[in-house]
Structures are given as C-alpha cells and as structure tokens.
C-alpha cells in the first residue's frame, strides 16, 4: 500500500478512453495481460509456421502413411511427443497443426461477422422504416439461436466442411455486432450536423458512417477480441459433434471426437487437443478482459471492504 503522497497534478491519461496511450507501460504491468499476450502470440506464430515446425507435417494434415498401422494408439514417447492417434499418426503434429485450423476459423468468423454486423447496424439506422424493422427482426431472431443448432440444419443442407462451420457461426455472431452498432448509429443520426449535411445535399451516409466507425470501432473491437475465445469453443463444439469438418482433419474438436471411442485405452488423444483449446481460448479471454478493463477506469480504483 505504498501511495505516493504528493499534491501532484492528475496524470492526463486516466480518464480519457486511453486505450492507445502508454500502451506498453500500462498493459505490461498487468500479469493477466502478459500471460494472455504470450499465449496469443505463440498461437499466431504457430498458426503461421506449424507445417514447417512439426516433425510429421503430412500426418498432421491427415495423411496416413502405410507404416502407421503398426503404431496405432501409442502412448507419448520421445519419438511421438503426444503419442499416436487411432490410425497411428503423430498426435503432436496433428494438434500443433490444429492451431492453424483454429486461427483460420476464428479470424474468418469474426471478420465476416464484424463486416456484416457493422454494415447492418449502420444501414438500419440510416434508412429507417422497413429496412430498420426487417434488420431489427433478423438481429433479434439470430441472436437467440445457438450456432450449433444452425450448424445441424446447414450440415444437412450443405454437407460437411469448413463452410458449414463458418456459415453457422457467422449467422449467429453478426447479430451481436449489428445490435451494438445500430444503437450507436441511431444516436448519431439524431445529431445536428448529420441533419445539416442532409439539408445541404451532402451525403450524410458517408459522414454518419465515418463518425459511427470512429466511435464504435473501439468498443466493438474489444468485444470481438473477447469473443474470439467463445467462437473458438463453439466452433470446436460444432466439429466435435461431427457437424463441420470431417474426421481426420487437423482440428481439435475432430481429434477429440476420434479419441472418444478409445478413451480408456488412449486418453491422450482426447486430452491434448482439449488442453490446447482451453489455453488458446484463455489467452484471448485474458487479452480481451484487460482491454475491457482499460476502457472502464472505474474498475481500476482501489477497493477494500470498508465497513
């Protein structure tokens, strides 16, 4: 409890939405952020370089070499760090290459959802009337349906594959961002200078979009970072149920499914991918949490039970 006793001037950064100020100094002070950042960076790096880093890249991708049948379901060893899976492939390679699959799924889903959501929110506020009603209805509709169920319907309609996973997740997630954007855009529409622009014949859409984006982008992005963990978990659930990527794919949910049938004799097959899922989702969560706390300065005040 070493407080600096002084009558100093207040530091200029505390109250402003100072997400971008003193980036390194403030964030690196927090253990939470450091752990999250390390995890996230490792994940991103692995996503890029995994095929060149793992000992058995083709097995990682799903290929079953002929000699693999000799070494099915082997426990972890020096040769195969995580052991081998049900077809004899190196589990370590599969799991590490699963990082790439995870990152691809997350980034695609989040960026598409952001795009569609932001667009929808702005359009609904700008055009009002029928467009507004329809978009609001769609938002409320899709916000209340879980991605897994949509995945079932899409799986039966479209068949297995990455498309199904991404489509189901985007169908749910866009509505969250649309809602946030819409609420904010609506208040922007009321602003005087938008009305003024409209009266003087300028396109208020451009102005509104720019203004909305400038202000809503930060909280929405922070939300998106925090959402990455949840998206990952939902995506892997979809794959775990066999609704998305097919068996033998380098995807954590899929590997866990494969390992279920041999859980008693080869628990490592399901153990490792799940662990990686936890750690990756945790990493994104920690980063997102820290960002959110920085936006809300109230949370940082000293607190103690005072009575």
């Amino acid at each position, binding site marked *: 409890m070493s407080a600096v006793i002084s009558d100093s001037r207040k530091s200029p950064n505390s109250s402003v939405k100072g997400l971008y100020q003193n980036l390194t100094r403030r964030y690196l002070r927090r253990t939470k952020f450091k752990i999250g950042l390390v995890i996230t960076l490792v994940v991103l790096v692995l996503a890029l370089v995994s095929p060149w880093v793992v000992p058995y890249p083709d097995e990682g991708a799903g290929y079953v070499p002929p000699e693999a049948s000799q070494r099915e379901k082997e426990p972890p060893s020096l040769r195969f760090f995580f052991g081998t899976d049900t077809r004899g492939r190196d589990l370590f390679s599969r799991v590490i290459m699963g990082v790439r699959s995870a990152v691809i799924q997350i980034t695609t889903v989040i960026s598409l959802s952001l795009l569609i959501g932001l667009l929808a929110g702005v359009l609904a506020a700008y055009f009002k009337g029928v467009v507004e009603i329809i978009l609001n209805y769609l938002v409320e509709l899709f916000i209340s*349906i879980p991605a897994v*169920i949509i995945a079932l319907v899409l799986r*039966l309609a479209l068949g297995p594959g990455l498309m199904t996973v991404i489509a189901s997740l985007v169908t749910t997630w866009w509505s969250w961002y649309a809602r946030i954007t819409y609420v904010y855009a609506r208040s922007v529409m009321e602003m005087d200078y938008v009305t003024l622009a409209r009266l003087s014949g300028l396109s208020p859409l451009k102005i509104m979009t720019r203004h909305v984006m400038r202000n809503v982008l930060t909280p929405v992005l922070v939300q998106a970072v925090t959402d990455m963990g949840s998206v990952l978990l939902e995506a892997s659930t979809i794959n775990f*149920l066999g609704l998305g990527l097919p068996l033998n794919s380098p995807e954590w949910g899929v590997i866990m499914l494969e*390992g279920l049938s041999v859980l008693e004799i080869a628990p490592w097959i399901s153990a490792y991918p799940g662990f990686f899922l936890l750690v990756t*989702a*945790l990493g994104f969560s920690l980063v997102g949490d820290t960002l959110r706390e920085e936006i809300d300065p109230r949370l940082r005040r000293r607190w103690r039970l005072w009575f």
Partner: protein
Amino acid sequence: MPLSLNYLTKRIVWIFLVIIGVVVFSYTAIIISPGDPAVKWAGNPRGPNASLAIELARKELGLDKPPLIQVLKFVADVFTGNIGLSIAYKIPVFEVILRRLVATLELLLISYLIAIPLGVFLGIESALHRNGKLDTFLQSLGTVLANTPTFWVGAWLFLTLILLGAYPYGRVDPKIATATGFHPITGFYLIDALVEGNLIVFVNILSKIISPAIAIAIYPIGVLVRLTRALVSDALLEDYIRASVAWGVSRSVIIWRYALKAITPGLVQVIGLAFSYSLVDAMAVEYVVFGREGLGSLLIDSLNYGDFRLAVGLIIIVAVFYLLVNTLTDIIQALIDPKVRL
C-alpha cells in the same frame, strides 16, 4: 403478479414470429443449397421405396408450386404440427423431441442447482477479500473455468469413473430399473424415482447424473464467480448501502441481504443467458460422452440419418426454449425489483 396482458401478448406474438423465422430459414437452407432438396427432405433414401419417398417429399416441400406459396405452405404445415414423421424414429417429430427434452432439462437443472449457489457464494467471498490472495485465486480460477470446453471436462470425468469401476453410461442402469420395477411418468427420472419411493433406482440415477452435471456446471461457475464479484463490489458503493451502514446495519445483513438482493436482477439476467448457452453444452456432452438420451442424442441421430425434419423440429424447440428462458428471467426480475413492471 407484475405482469401485464400487454407484455404476455407481445411475448407470444414474438415467439410466433421467431418460429416463422426459424422455419423460413431452414426451408431456405434446404431449397437453395446444392443438390435435390426433395432427396434431402426425404432423408437420402435408398432401396426399392426410394423414389416414392422422394415424390412424397417433393409434395411436402411444395416444390411444384411457386416459391412464395412454397414457403407459406411449409410454415403452415409446421404450425399444424405436420412436419411429418421423423425418419430416424418413424413417429411424429414433436413427440420425439418433447420426450427427450425432459431428459436434457433435468440434467441442466441439476447442473445449475450446483453451479448457482457455488458460483455466487465464491463470488461474494471473492468480493469481500478483493485484491487479496483468495480473490486473485478465485478470479483466475473463474476465468479458466469459463474457458474450459465442457466436453473435455466431461471426457475426463467419464474416464475417471470408468477407471474407478463405476459405469457412467446412460441415465439409469437398465438391470436395476427392471429389477425394481421403475416406470418413469414425467420423464424427470429423479422425481419419478422419488414418487415411486424407489430409493435404489434414485441413487443409481443420481450417481449417473452427477458427472455430466458437474461438467456442464463448470462454465456457469466460472462466469458467476467473476460476475458476482463485480456486481457485489459495485453494489457496496451504492448510496443506500452507505446510508444503511451509517445507520448501524450490521455487516452480515448488508452483504447477505441488502447486497445479495440488489445484485439478483443482474445475476438472473446473466444466469438466463448462460442457461441457454448450457443447453447446447449439455446437448454436446450428454450423448456423445455419457450415452444419455436427450436432445443431444436427437442431434446425433438427425445427423446420422439425414433426418432434416428432426433438425427443423429441433431448431424450433431450441429457439422457443431460449425465448421462454428469456421471458422467465424477465418475470423473475420484475418480481424482485419493485420498480420494474412488465
């Protein structure tokens, strides 16, 4: 009751609109996706009666009519309960779903019966010792728990039980059930066993429900520990708390009565959201890991049999479930907060 007829009417209308939306979505999905929709609707049949089934499916989908009529007809069919027979089960779809829904619901309720008291209690303790060691530990634990994949924990629990010699499959041991003459009425096995006075079966059912319940409870516990701590910390800074402290109200009353009551509306809202999320978690883990019958088994069967009708039924039920939970949390909030009138 703090409800108005207006509110209820709006809710019911909204549920209808959602069902329509969901059905239109499914219909669109099957129509515009590559491949013959009739084949998919018929469940990819093979064998001698295949073409007959496909023709029937074509009529049911109304593919011979113009698009708008198709959609309307389909929606109307759904509302009259006429999605046809489930391909997997050969009985009407909604009958199948409702039977299994109870099983998943039972699991969810037991799970939240564990998660809510535990999560809230730990959250309060965390807030009271804020910035101390207990708080840091609990908050870190909470974050980890909230990010743990349920089916992973489920797999571990399952494995542990197997290694210990227990048999965590299914909802009840069939041998014990037949031996003790167990006849479930409601579908909530725990209640049915108690009603029958059948303690042996009750213990058996309980032992089988505990592990998946714990696996599902992991996520809400994590969420609640963090949420409660934040809500309590905020609540304790409110004006009326300060005034009450000034008037001499004791610490335990302030925390366990005033603060707890104050955070309940916020808690209930989040619990509702988490509960809906856990439905999917439960579906993922109950059948695939624990071999229990429920909505999860329906999901897998729908997948394996290409049973699109079942899928449509499922999506309707899940959407309605979400809405009902949402409505329930609204009502609970109105009951607690005298200023809220629906």
